């Protein structure tokens, strides 16, 4: 019998007679009919989930009940319109009740298929019908709640579908104030399941079926970080678009959702987020920026996108708080990249005609900057020429930039004069952001236009000498100067001139002061002097009596500020040069007059910045580096955390640029008796101590630093490798996800990039497993650790020669590889008397997973074969698995 036939049975035999029955005055017995339908319903319960017929039957049943009850209601409503206020009892309602009670009887069946189908039917009825008998309703709710905790996720999904509707209704009831705590009960349980259900399908069903209320929203949005990618995608592609205007979400939510979605590990989630941003969120803004005339059309074009609108785009950026999310590395950059990518209409529409750069807001500046960046990075010639048409030419842009820089400096001065002025401060923050955006654009301009280049050069040169210039702008201006200067010599001399000027502007003031201090009668004059060149550092003495001590303090603060500012400029400059330090007279002067005194300073911030500069200098001179490595090592062992981080970074950078510093003293290679470089030991010790640091920052820095040097083969110490792996598995590093995630990246890359690395890993594998087993033995109660079999599997993966870069290309196939070495190490360990039973078990299982290359050197295979035989004789290993290792 086909589906069609069974439907015929279902509707033409029992249903049609029933319909007639209503009109023809009980020609058939209603009781018989209901019994027959129930019997049929029961028949469907054993239909497996994979069978689409089952779903169709359920749908059919729902459709039938819905239609029938509508008809019933029509019949009953007409004659006694006055008396049917309450929900009328009709033949269909009686039938529904009967089906439901039948269903509830078998809903706890042992058979999971039956439970699935019953729950599905109940949920479906709940969702299709408007009303159900009150008493029965309570039972339905209870039964579904129990199924929410069913063992089978498919049953739980169905329970969710049914309860979602109930939670919705209960929510309404709560508003009407006539509900008891059952209402909250359903919702609470659903919310709990949304967080805790182990099955992603259930969580996804919940995500899409819970009502949107202030009570559920935080729970729903939290799913943006669900473990399951499909659930996350459902949130971005279905829930959020359905949620209505995104502006109702709080700023924190908007920012988090955007950041999580745009940077999701799953590409489809990222795509869904990009679409949400550029298609939904922008439209929400565009809708409110429509002109009067368009409003009528809006009704019609509800689903269609609105015309591009600059104000809408600016609002969108304001809504994601671009002053904060648009800083370097902020999420607004990714969002706008996707925006330009997916909205060619806005690309065509946008224009930077004259008033645009005159009246900048943070939002409009960001629009210009991201558009500029998008077009420049695009490989399409069309986009690049489009950008050229729209952007002002270099000279004009330089003038505009100059005007905004002046405004910024004025703002900074104003704030310095009156730190209480919140409005001025806010304005200056915004202006600073605008200027940064313009500087970013300036970095990408084409300076083959000599007029423009000169103009930009002189503006940058002048501005850099202003002590009021904020740090980020300083950094950008130094970079721009590097691009507009002909060579590094010129660049360095220009920047250092500016440093001297900054020094003079501020210290000149103080110098006068010092002279005045001798003659105390000049108090008032001095105060005015201070006012005439206000800086962040300048503070007018408050009273005459405390002036001397106040002055000393002021002077000290001013000195620190000057030094910090000068060192910052120097640091920015050093980041942009590559020449040999000793050949650049400007740099040598700077090193001696600015950096060296700073390193010796008593003030911690100055010393730190001085060290950074010294480190940067060391990268430009091997001699200097060699002289100072011990100094940096000393900073690590004696310094506080911040200094330790800096020390690790500097030393690592130096070793990266000059790996030969670690070479053995008389460098004739492959001479066993040769002494190792005396620096090796303290440097290894530093990394080792860093890895074990309590401070996550230090730990992470040491780990990343070591990763770099090991990848570059500058450091090959097996003990440090071992420590990295131990740190990876240690339960204590769970609280340091940066460390874990960087090792997740590094370890396989390290092992699979070079055969020698995989072999090193294989050599330390046994001690690692031993150490971890011991670690697992004395775990604290709270701690959780991965099982040893997981560790073994990881090691097998890392050392797998088949995963090596360039495997199968025929290169060095004759050499020993990771698994070969690992096999040998494991076998030897198994044969030692000290090997415990558990260890042996893990090792032997691991042996079974190793891949032995057919091209492996014969002697290595022979060694392993001998070891295996020995193992047989000693009867230490299960023979089958060991033998497998060799096949």
């Amino acid at each position, binding site marked *: 019998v086909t589906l069609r036939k*069974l*439907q015929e*049975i279902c509707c033409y035999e029992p249903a049609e007679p029933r319909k007639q029955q209503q009109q023809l005055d009980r020609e058939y017995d209603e009781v018989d009919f209901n019994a027959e339908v129930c019997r049929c319903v029961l028949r469907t319960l054993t239909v497996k989930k994979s069978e689409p017929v089952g779903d169709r039957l359920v749908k059919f049943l729902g459709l039938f009940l819905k239609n029938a009850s509508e008809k019933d209601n029509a019949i009953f409503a007409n004659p006694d319109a006055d008396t049917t206020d309450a929900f009328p009892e009709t033949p269909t309602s009686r039938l529904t009740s009967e089906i439901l009670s039948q269903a509830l009887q078998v809903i706890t069946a042992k058979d999971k298929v039956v439970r699935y189908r019953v729950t599905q039917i109940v949920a479906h009825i709940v969702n299709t019908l408007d009303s159900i008998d009150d008493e029965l309703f309570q039972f339905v709710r209870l039964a579904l709640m129990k199924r929410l905790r069913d063992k089978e996720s498919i049953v739980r999904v169905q329970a969710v579908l049914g309860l979602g509707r109930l939670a919705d209704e209960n929510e309404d009831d709560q508003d009407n104030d006539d509900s008891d705590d059952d209402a909250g009960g359903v919702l609470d349980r659903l919310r709990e399941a949304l967080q*805790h259900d182990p099955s992603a399908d259930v969580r996804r069903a919940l995500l899409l079926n819970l009502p949107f209320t202030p009570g559920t929203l935080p729970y729903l949005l939290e799913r943006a970080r669900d473990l399951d990618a499909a659930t996350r995608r459902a949130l971005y592609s279905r829930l959020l678009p359905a949620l209505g205007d995104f502006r109702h979400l709080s700023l924190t939510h908007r920012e988090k959702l955007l950041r999580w979605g745009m940077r999701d590990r799953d590409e489809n989630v990222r795509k869904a987020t990009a679409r949400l941003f550029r298609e939904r969120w922008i439209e929400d803004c565009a809708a409110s920026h429509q002109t009067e005339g368009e409003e009528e059309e809006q009704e019609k074009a509800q689903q269609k996108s609105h015309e591009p609108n600059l104000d809408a785009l600016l609002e969108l950026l304001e809504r994601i708080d671009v002053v904060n999310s648009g800083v370097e590395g902020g999420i607004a950059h990714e969002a706008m990249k996707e925006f330009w990518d997916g909205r060619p209409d806005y690309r065509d529409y946008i224009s930077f005609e004259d008033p645009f750069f005159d009246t900048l807001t943070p939002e409009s500046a960001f629009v210009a900057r991201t558009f500029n960046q998008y077009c420049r990075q695009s490989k399409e010639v069309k986009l690049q020429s489009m950008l050229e048409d729209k952007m002002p030419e270099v000279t004009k842009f330089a003038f505009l930039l100059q005007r905004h820089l002046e405004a910024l400096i004025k703002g900074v001065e104003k704030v310095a004069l009156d730190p209480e002025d919140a409005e001025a401060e806010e304005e200056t923050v915004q202006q600073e952001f605008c200027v940064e955006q313009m500087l970013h654009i300036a970095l990408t301009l084409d300076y083959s236009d000599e007029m423009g280049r000169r103009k930009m050069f002189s503006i940058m040169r002048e501005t850099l000498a202003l002590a009021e210039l904020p740090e980020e702008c300083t950094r950008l201006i130094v970079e721009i100067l590097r691009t507009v200067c002909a060579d590094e010599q010129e660049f360095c001399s220009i920047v250092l001139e500016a440093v001297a000027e900054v020094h003079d502007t501020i210290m000149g003031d103080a110098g006068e002061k010092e002279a005045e201090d001798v003659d105390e009668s000049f108090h008032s004059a001095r105060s005015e002097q201070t006012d005439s060149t206000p800086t962040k550092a300048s503070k007018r003495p408050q009273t005459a009596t405390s002036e001397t001590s106040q002055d000393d303090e002021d002077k000290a603060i001013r000195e620190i500020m000057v030094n910090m500012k000068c060192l910052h400029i120097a640091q920015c400059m050093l980041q942009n040069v590559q020449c040999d330090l000793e050949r650049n007279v400007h740099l040598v002067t700077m090193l001696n007059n600015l950096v060296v005194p700073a390193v010796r300073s008593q003030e911690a911030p100055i010393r730190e910045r001085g060290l950074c500069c010294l480190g940067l200098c060391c990268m430009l001179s091997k001699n200097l580096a060699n002289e100072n490595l011990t100094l940096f090592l000393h900073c690590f062992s004696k310094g506080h955390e911040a200094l330790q981080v800096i020390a690790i970074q500097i030393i690592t950078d130096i070793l990266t640029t000059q790996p030969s510093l670690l070479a053995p003293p008389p460098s004739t290679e492959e001479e066993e008796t040769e002494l190792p470089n005396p620096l090796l030991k303290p440097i290894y010790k530093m990394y080792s101590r860093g890895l074990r640091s309590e401070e996550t920052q230090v730990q992470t820095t040491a780990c990343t630093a070591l990763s770099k040097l090991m990848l570059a083969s500058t450091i090959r110490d097996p003990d440090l490798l071992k420590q990295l792996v131990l740190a990876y598995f240690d339960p204590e590093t769970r609280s340091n*996800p940066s460390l874990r995630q960087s090792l997740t990246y590094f370890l396989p890359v390290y092992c699979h990039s070079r055969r020698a690395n995989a*072999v090193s890993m294989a050599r330390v594998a046994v001690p690692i497993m031993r150490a971890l087993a011991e670690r697992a033995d004395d775990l604290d109660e709270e701690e959780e650790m991965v099982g040893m079999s997981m560790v073994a599997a990881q090691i097998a993966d890392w050392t797998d020669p088949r995963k090596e870069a360039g495997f199968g290309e025929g290169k060095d196939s004759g050499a020993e590889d990771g698994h070969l070495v690992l096999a040998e190490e494991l076998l030897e360990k198994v044969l030692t008397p000290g090997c415990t039973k558990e260890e042996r078990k893990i090792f032997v299982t691991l042996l079974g997973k190793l891949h032995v290359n057919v091209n492996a050197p014969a002697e290595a295979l022979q060694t392993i074969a001998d070891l295996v035989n020995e193992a047989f004789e000693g009867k230490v290993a299960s023979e089958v698995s060991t033998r497998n290792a060799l096949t």
Partner: protein
Amino acid sequence: ALNAPASKRKEKEPFALDFAVPMSQALADALYTPASSTSIISLPKAQWKSKTRNLLPDDKHFNSRQLLRLFLKPKASMGSRKTGTS
């Protein structure tokens, strides 16, 4: 009103369900064997709560760039490294 099912096209699946035949014993068993205890058909209590609330840890977005750049000069790359052969 009930013609929706009738308009459905013929089914290709060989799956059949005969509503006319009386209930088989197997079917009755499946239907009327209740689970001996609720615990058998329910989720073990240990799985009611998930420590992580089934959420991902915070992504740190570690990538190769972080291994290939200098700490102090993020713009300068470390240059080409030798890779491959041992």
